[in-house]
């Protein structure tokens, strides 16, 4: 922090006042209070400070409904609020989407920490965390969030909503898109300023995805039997189908282009229905049957299958130089495999045995991979784990929690 100098807050206020006064005097109506006359890019993000490295945190929700935010840099914990009836938590790295079926709502929490990928480098921000409010619907929602925003789908009514990242950044929950499809167990996912929404077939199961443009106009339909699972990579947005994956990208003309990446002819494992990966990498992982792991390289458009050799409940791809693949084994261990050879490189001790064994709690456990470490929540164990996957699955740190961390996501990435 040698050459870093903070401006005394009072000066900033004085300047902001001058600015507003000046703009008003100039008679420019919409410029009043707008501090973006210069620099609508960097350093001009109101209330946020640019930082030299990612402000990584774990956002957890416990059985009492308390939302806590653990700073992985200084190990401090903030309580962001209390939200009841949460059945799932999703994030794209900044906002926490708390799914509340009984309230028929999704509560959106701004963690106040995020990373902005700027082509070949990154900017890291830290601001104030806050609860932005609720997006109302009916019954349980499925949330698919990525850098473009978040898609919220209410299965009971078929209401599909897209929140735009730029609108969220203004602390607004105004919907960019709101469309209705037949009620079914589906989802909507943003792709640039457009989105993909699932639609059901005759049997009521998701059978296709439909392009929705930025104005909510329904476009092209692409077949996708048993559509399940979606994730964004540096290449595009993946949607899982029975016979392969769809990869949606934004073409030169700004329109959504969809490719199909079929499974190998003799796949030998059930299709992927849930994807996990380190943010910003091309390769993603998914559980393939009892002990298999699908690896989808969205850059090469190829599938690979490796075997963990033991039953697993979750898998994620680090996609680093060593092609590390992580899995949570059914016996509560974290496994580290080579994505290239399938070899088991290391395994932790069984750390979340009781949580994995509990069918109610296991769905809330999240194995999270970032560039250097993996994180895991143990509700029964009342502990968060930090795992050094490059060093023999060593438990680098543990964080004891006051209550059960039922759901945990990583923010600031």
């Amino acid at each position, binding site marked *: 922090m040698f050459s870093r*100098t903070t401006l005394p807050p009072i000066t900033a206020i004085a300047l902001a006042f001058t600015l507003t006064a000046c703009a008003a005097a100039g008679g420019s109506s919409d410029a009043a209070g707008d501090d973006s*006359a210069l620099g609508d890019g960097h*350093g001009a993000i109101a209330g946020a400070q*640019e930082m030299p490295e990612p402000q990584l945190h774990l956002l957890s929700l416990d059985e009492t409904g308390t939302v806590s935010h653990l700073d992985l840099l200084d190990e401090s914990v903030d309580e962001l609020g209390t939200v009841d009836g949460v059945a799932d938590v999703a994030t794209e790295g900044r906002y926490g989407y708390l799914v509340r079926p009984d309230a028929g709502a999704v509560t959106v929490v701004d963690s106040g920490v995020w990373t902005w990928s700027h082509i070949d480098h990154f900017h890291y921000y830290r601001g104030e965390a806050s609860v932005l409010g609720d997006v109302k619907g009916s019954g349980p929602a499925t949330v698919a969030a990525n850098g473009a925003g978040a898609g919220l789908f209410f299965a009971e009514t078929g209401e599909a909503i897209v929140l735009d990242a730029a609108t969220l950044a203004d602390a607004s929950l105004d919907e960019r898109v709101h469309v209705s499809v037949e009620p079914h167990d589906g989802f909507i996912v943003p792709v640039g300023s457009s989105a993909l929404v699932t639609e059901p077939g005759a049997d009521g199961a998701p059978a296709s995805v439909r392009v929705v443009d930025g104005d909510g106009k329904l476009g092209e339909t692409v077949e996708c039997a048993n559509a399940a699972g979606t994730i964004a990579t540096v290449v595009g947005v993946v949607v899982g189908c029975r016979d392969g994956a769809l990869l949606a990208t934004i073409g030169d003309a700004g329109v959504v282009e969809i490719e199909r990446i079929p499974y190998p002819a003799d796949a030998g494992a059930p299709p992927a229905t849930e994807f996990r990966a380190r943010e910003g990498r091309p390769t993603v992982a998914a559980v393939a049957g009892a002990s298999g792991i699908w690896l989808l390289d969205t850059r090469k458009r190829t599938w690979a299958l490796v075997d963990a050799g033991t039953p697993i409940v979750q898998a994620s791809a680090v996609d680093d130089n060593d092609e590390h693949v992580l899995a949570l084994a059914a016996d509560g261990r974290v496994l580290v495999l080579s994505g290239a050879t399938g070899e088991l490189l290391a395994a932790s001790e069984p750390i979340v045995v009781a949580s994995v064994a509990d069918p109610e709690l296991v769905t809330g456990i999240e194995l999270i991979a970032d560039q250097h470490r993996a994180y895991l929540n143990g509700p029964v164990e009342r502990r968060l784990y930090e795992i050094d996957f490059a060093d023999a699955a060593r438990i*680098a740190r543990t964080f004891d929690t006051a209550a059960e961390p039922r759901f945990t996501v990583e923010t600031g990435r």
Partner: protein
Amino acid sequence: MRRATGFAAVAAIVATAGLLTGCAPSIAADRPLVVVTTNILGDVVGELVGDEAEVLVLMPPGADPHSFEISAQTAARLRDAELIVANGIGLEEGLAGHVESAEADGVPVFLAGDHLEVLAYAEGDAEGTPDPHFWTDPARMVDVVTALGEELPAELADSDSASVDVDRIAANTEAYLAELDELDREMTATFTAIPEARRALVTNHHVFGYLADRFGFRIIGAVIPSGTTLAAPSASDLRELVAAIDEAGVPTIFAESSQSDRLVQVLAEGADRDVDVVELVTESLTPPGGDAETYLDMMRVNTARIATGLST
């Protein structure tokens, strides 16, 4: 790439300066406008033109010149300029489009990169591509200022604005060139005093290629372990940095890190390497009250930090 050290509040300073002049035409109208992209060149141009022109600097202190962007309102002001001064060599990616379209509209553009011998990056992802960070070599800044000393009076003299005292600009330029010569002499003397074997910068800053070339430093790129790995590091987290330190054989690494103290401690305890971590000022001046408010200050503070770091 560099991580900018910008603050939201700081952006308001220059924004205010820009708006104040923008909404107070009675003050500004009789002086021609020079728009400068980076705050480093903004400081230099301000020294040369003195009171003879209004200087609008687009990037506030702490801005990242690679990705800085401007609003449509500010972009419109570029067309009012008698001259736009930019770094060039691909530095201002976020502004290039605005500068080019102003140029297409007939606004003269001075690119610093056209007036110096450009080096290529010596290592890293960008190896072989032109390096825009020329200012770390004061002799190259002399080349740029010499060229500006011709261009500025020429463009300002035939502006529609009230009379510009070109002799004053010539005198300012001469005085500033003398200051740059003095800076160059100081840096040469200071760096020559460092034994050649110790002239090595272990750094995650990417701007010192010109300085290294000019004063005979080796640059050894370093990956600084992140905050989460520093909490409970393994040997593999430190391996690359330790290798760089050993290769350089120096007691200080020059790096931007939010946890310098922890890094020092980890290197001592985990790798038995006793080093200091010192941050340098790289590609943006500091806000008022900081230790690098001007180009000359920035160069002197970096020179002192490097000399101290490599001699202890």
